[in-house]
């Protein structure tokens, strides 16, 4: 009899470990990109923009409201600020001081990373389009990529009041963006099951559909 009990235990253990090991250890299953943190063509810092400066996510990723893709902002969006802000406050301050000392107009200082942005737009030193230079779009490395057969749409999630951080993690603390979650199907489904606080009745939750065709079509 003991032997059988042992047998059952072994089987149970097998199942349990199969279920837990991937979570506990760093072992990734194929397709799981969790922790993916590639270098980007421009060392853009979400910590600085979203964290310190507290620029709302939707200011740059406005697509999340109007489209299925939040989208990577066009360089023109960056220029809204960086037409004026060309370098860190400290460096410009220093230049101004020095200029004062040397009784001359302060020169424009351009941070190397921002220079890449201006080059991409083909702007001259005066930040005006320069016919000599050719504009070429910035090829960012895609981090959050779902398989082609999974359709994700930002709109309903934003509408339901799901915070960006819920899926993208503490993005406002990331110097370089990292895939925070597994983005596995189970992860999606469990959130859909749990749902979000319902706006109309207090304490209630609004669960999302778990129909396959919601994401697969």
């Amino acid at each position, binding site marked *: 009899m003991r032997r059988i009990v042992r047998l059952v235990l072994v089987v149970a253990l097998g199942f349990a470990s199969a*279920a837990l090991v991937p979570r506990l250890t760093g072992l990734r299953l194929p397709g799981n990109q969790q922790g993916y943190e590639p270098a980007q063509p421009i060392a853009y810092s979400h910590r600085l923009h979203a964290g310190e400066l507290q620029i709302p996510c939707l200011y740059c990723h406005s697509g999340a409201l109007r489209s299925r893709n939040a989208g990577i902002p066009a360089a023109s969006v960056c220029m809204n600020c960086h037409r004026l802000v060309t370098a860190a406050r400290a460096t410009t301050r220093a230049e101004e001081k020095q200029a004062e000392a040397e009784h001359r107009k302060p020169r424009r200082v351009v941070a190397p990373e921002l220079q890449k942005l201006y080059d991409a737009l083909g702007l001259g030193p005066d930040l005006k389009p320069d016919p000599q230079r050719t504009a070429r779009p910035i090829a960012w490395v895609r981090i959050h990529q779902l398989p082609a057969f999974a359709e994700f749409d930002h709109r309903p999630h934003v509408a339901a009041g799901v915070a960006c951080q819920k899926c993208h993690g503490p993005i406002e603390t990331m110097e370089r963006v990292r895939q925070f979650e*597994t983005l596995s199907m*189970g*992860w999606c489904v469990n959130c859909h099951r749990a749902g979000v606080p319902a706006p109309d009745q207090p304490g209630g939750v609004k669960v999302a559909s778990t129909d396959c065709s919601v994401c697969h079509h």
Partner: protein
Amino acid sequence: MTEALFPLQRPLIAGDKTAADVTRDVCRPLEGRPTPLWWAGFLAAAALLGLGVVCVGYEVATGIGTWGLNKTVGWAFDITNFVFWVGIGHAGTLISAVLFLLRQRWRTSVNRAAEAMTLFAVMCAALFPLIHMGRPWFAYWVFPYPNTRGSLWVNFRSPLLWDVFAISTYFLISLVFWYVGLIPDLATLRDRSSGRRQRLAGLFALGWNGALSTWNRYELVYLLLAGLATPLVLSVHSIVSFDFSTSVIPGWHTTIFPPYFVAGAIFSGLGMVLTLMLIARKTMRLEDYITPRHVDVLCKLVLATSLMVGLAYTTEIATALYSGNPYEGFAFLNRAAGPMGWTYWIMVGCNVAAPQLLWSARVRRRLGIVFAISLLVNVGMWFERFVIIVTSLHRDFLPSSWASYSPTPIEIGTLLGSFGLFFTLFLLFCRFLPAIAMGEVKGVLSHGKGDHA
């Protein structure tokens, strides 16, 4: 004198053998060099197997489109071969388990080979559900394992999934059954040989020494396994038949399928056993062990099951026509008289007409004819599955979708390949393992010699 009075008291083993003779005779083919006949058979089988590997490889690499299937006929050779081989796989367990429970002592000469046949047939069968998938590299999805999809399990309502469990269970139990029976003989082999064979046999003999206390448990375990295998053998083919009987397709959607399939399976299995026995008897000089009496008994079983199958054929037509369901009625008329009617008549001819010859004892004694009939039975049973699957599918509910079917060379190659696999394995078995259960045959030597009868 006794013989005339009690025909059942005739000795089971001819040639008045002693236990030592048995050991010697059975082990002889294993210890000598292989006969040219064996080589010829082996090379032929291996060649077929090679052809099969090429065809399957091309199919997996290119797509199911390399088969002759279409939008209407989604299964044909693939599942036909599957059911055919599963069917073959049934006689082994039947002979060793059911006949064991029924105390049919004559089984001892044939059960070992029959069980081996079962294993190899089930291997061939299991191949087809795998390669018939559009994406075999995801075949593991049919097993319910914890996963990162939520967890997304499998559909336990699908007969195909029942198949997965039935076939794997059946294979494992048959394997164990076969191996347990093999242990004492392996010990014998170990004790009379030396060198590598001894070490190898010794490894698998698990240190068996024939102690009476072990024999005592062994007998019980064997009995229990036989007891388990018997309902299993019935369940497996019932489940295979569910693939069809639980569907909505006229010609598939039939309640008599489970018994009908089981009978058919045993029928085809016995046919294959006969074929193999007669071959082995000749090629391995085992005339004294596989005596005309064994053949005679098997023939009677074939005849009986043939009649069952025939009954099933008539029953399903009768119910279809009597049911008044126009679709059902049409399916069966179309089966017999439609564009693919010829397959139906091959089936009837081989499975019902031909075995009737076995009523005559003279025919049963003419091993040549028996061999021919056993081959016909194999052919007929393959066509039975083809008829059930294809003629039902190709003309179902909507006339707009009626289609025809014809196999491509790739499919035919795959079928031949499965035979190649089967015979390759079987010949290797005959070469390296005792094809007759010595331990059990020795037990029946005394049978019909007056004492302990």
